[in-house]
């Protein structure tokens, strides 16, 4: 009875419980924003020859209103997904067949050069904020730098860290990659930060004065170029977390800007 192919792309937004309350978040989801939708009739009603039949197809990737397509992104509160659905309508007696599959969209390289923005940091008991009893903290000095907070998404985040000295033994040093999703709705907007992944770069009491590499690859699907739209925002940050053996936890936060070059 005919085969048709439909391409759909949409942004699904989830309200976070924080701003609206648990039950309302559950029942009121913000309407998904449609990015692109288009259908092609592949085959007219009739009979197909037996065996494998290959039918080529083509979809122009144009957003409505000539805006740029967002990249595929799977997050917690924001989800940008593109799918391809194939429907085969059949006669009254046979059930219709359908199959869906996701495809990934990456944006074209942005024009212009990336301005590298290296950041140096030094962490001591004095530089910490929101500390209750500064006196009870063990003495330590941690120095380091990130090569750039403006990152190309296809390249890893790099840098170096040195534990110059520390009174307490080091248990672990980790890089925590965080996504910050902002969703807007009628009542206002909610801003939520959640962890994407945690990469350990030091295990155990490392040598003092020895530079330890900071290196983290941005995971595909769960990261995308930093995105700001009228309805939602997707941003990224990295935390350098140092765990000491006396259970003290030291964090230093760095906002990032991801782009595709």
């Amino acid at each position, binding site marked *: 009875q005919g085969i048709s192919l439909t391409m759909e792309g949409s942004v699904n937004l989830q309200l976070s419980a924080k701003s609206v309350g648990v039950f309302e978040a559950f029942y009121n989801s913000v309407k998904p924003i449609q990015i692109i939708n288009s259908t092609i009739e592949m085959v007219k009603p009739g009979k197909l020859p037996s065996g494998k039949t290959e039918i080529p197809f083509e979809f122009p990737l144009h957003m409505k209103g000539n805006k740029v397509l967002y990249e595929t992104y799977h997050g917690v509160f924001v989800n940008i997904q593109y799918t391809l659905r194939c429907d085969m309508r059949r006669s009254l007696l046979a059930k219709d067949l359908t199959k869906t599959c996701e495809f990934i969209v990456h944006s074209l390289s942005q024009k212009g050069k990336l301005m590298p923005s290296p950041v140096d940091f030094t962490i001591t008991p004095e530089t910490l904020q929101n500390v209750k009893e500064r006196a009870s903290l063990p003495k330590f000095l941690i120095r380091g730098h990130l090569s750039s907070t403006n990152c190309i998404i296809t390249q890893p985040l790099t840098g170096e860290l040195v534990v110059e000295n520390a009174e307490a033994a080091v248990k672990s040093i*980790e890089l925590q990659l965080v996504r910050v999703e902002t969703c807007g709705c009628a009542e206002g907007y909610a801003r939520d930060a959640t962890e994407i992944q945690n*990469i350990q770069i030091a295990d155990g009491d490392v040598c003092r004065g020895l530079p330890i590499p900071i290196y983290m690859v941005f995971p595909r699907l769960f990261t995308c170029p930093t995105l700001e739209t009228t309805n939602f925002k997707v941003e990224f940050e990295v935390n350098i977390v140092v765990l000491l053996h006396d259970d003290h936890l030291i964090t230093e936060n760095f906002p990032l800007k991801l782009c595709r070059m």
Partner: protein
Amino acid sequence: VCICYRYNFSPESVNDTAKETCLNWFFKIASIRELIPRFYVEAAILKCNKFLSKTGISECLPRLTSMIRGIGDPLVAVYARAYLCRVGSPVKYLFTATCLCLLFQQIHGDTVQNQLVVQCVEIPLYLTLYSPAIDWILQCIAYRAPEVLLTEMMERCRKLGNNALLLNSVMSAFRAEFIAARSMDFIGMIKECDESGFPKHLLFRSLGLNLALADPPENDRLQILNEAWKVITKLKNPQDYINCAEVWVEYTCRHFTNREINTVLADVIKHMTPDRAFEDAYPQLQSIIQKVITYIYDFSLLFSVEKFLPFLDMFQKESVRVEVCKCIMESFIKHQQESTKDPVILNALLHICKTMHDSVNALTLEDEKRMLAALINGFIKMVSFGRDFEQQLSFYVEARSMFCNLEPVLVQLIHSVNQLAMETRKVMKGNHSRKTAAFVRACVAFCFITIPSLSSIFTRLNLYLHSGQVALANQCLSQADAFFKAAVSLVPEVPKMISVDGKMRPSDAFLLEFLCNFFSTLLVVPDHPEQGVLFLVRGLLNVIQDYTWEDNSDDKVRIYTNVLHLLSAMTQEAYIYHVDKVDSNDTLYGGDSKFLTEINKLCETVIAQILDHLKTLGKEETLKRQSQLALYFFNTILAHGDLRNNKLNQLSVNLWNLAQKHGFADTKTMVKTLEYIKRRSKQPEMSHFTDLALRLPLQSRT
């Protein structure tokens, strides 16, 4: 779809799906949280970078190397480096001096030290845990490295204050030639080494291992030994001592004389005897013996090392002692070129062989018995007293009482004694004096007494025959008779099945072979004047008659046919072979008619037996055998009988016809036989064959 790539493929030729899968894996791994697993998994699939880019591996390696700095535990870190050496091409910067310094700093830092206390591990033991990793890393760096690099590494070690752990790894990893050439330098470094837990004797041991493979400069050799031994001899713990001493014994053997070796062996005995310390060190002590006999393979020199036999006394566990004896004997057999009568060697080796022999009991495996016997025989064959035959015989007599439990040795001794008798004969050019005749009789007596103690029946039979021949050759006629009579009496005892190579087999074939061999000898054995004509042959025939042959075998008849060969040979005027200085029956009887009549009577009896048997084969299932036997008998008559005799002539024709009667004859054979007869008929005095040929029809195939 599976696509195979050639070994040196390039990323361009890789299919997209493969690339995507590979990339996927690298992404997954990059997301592993924990540092150490992430490191190892990525290192493990390092080579997969080849799918993605040409430079992938060389880009990854430095990054992975620096990742290791994040591992806090120095022991874990060093093994991570070793693993990287294993999967990547060895890179020098894996092990820079700085990193070494830090390694040792960390070892002595609080965290590790506290851990050791908690786990009750002593620092010397802890340090030995590093050796495999550091050894490996250094080996990778040193592999095919130019001498310059090795010298540079050595300098770095020196700068690090001669750390013992590192020095040990250098000696394990670098080429033996390099180390050996600088032995004195290394000894200096070992002396200056800070112990900090790593024991010095291990360092000396490592040095010794190198010196076993390569030689130090000549002038330094003695000094090196002295320096090393000064340290070794002071070691209190027997295990530490012996592990070290074992290695340096080889060095001593390589470069020094018996005197130094003796000193070293004495030192070992001194250290290992108190509290029976040798009981825990058998492998090392065995290794020492092995080395000593490898380098001193001249046994007269070996036994001049005074402490050698006392050293052997330390092997008090029987199985180990026997193993050591076997080693020594193997070396003797391999290296001893000439026979010896040196009393020192003989005494020592007899002692060693006796040790091996005495270890044989009911539980000893057949294979082991065989091996031990072979070793002892190897020794016996190398003992020779030259012209002093009497001493030689005494030696064999002594050996017989010492080695009575190993049958192959007894067999060897019998052969040796027989050989001795024949040697005597050769020296006397066949003319024995009264003295040598008595001596030869003593040899014969030795064999006669020894043979019955053997268990294998065919060995006994063959030795009786062989010794009888030797006796005959030495004109000991009555002794020869005794042997042959003994053999004849033994035939009835041959069992139906005998063990051959562990399997039970029927004995017929062996018996047949023996009897034919016996017949050949009996031709030249002269009749005893007081016994009847062909006494021995008759005796043998009786025994054959009474022997229970297999029901469906024709062996008895085949033997009878062979007897006919013997009997017909005996009627000749001159036999085709003789034993020197022994008058056989041809000379004794000189063709006497009574003698010939006796033989004919015997022949008739035998032929009757054969014909009877042929008749019994007339049944349907045995017709083929009948045909074969008939032809066999026909050929015998053809070869040995006088076909001018009518009866014989007729008999042969009958046999010919019988062979073909039921169609079982092989046509080709028959045709060839007939052709042969026709050819023979053309020779002088063979014209009767022509008639014969005419009377032999060939049956055509239907």
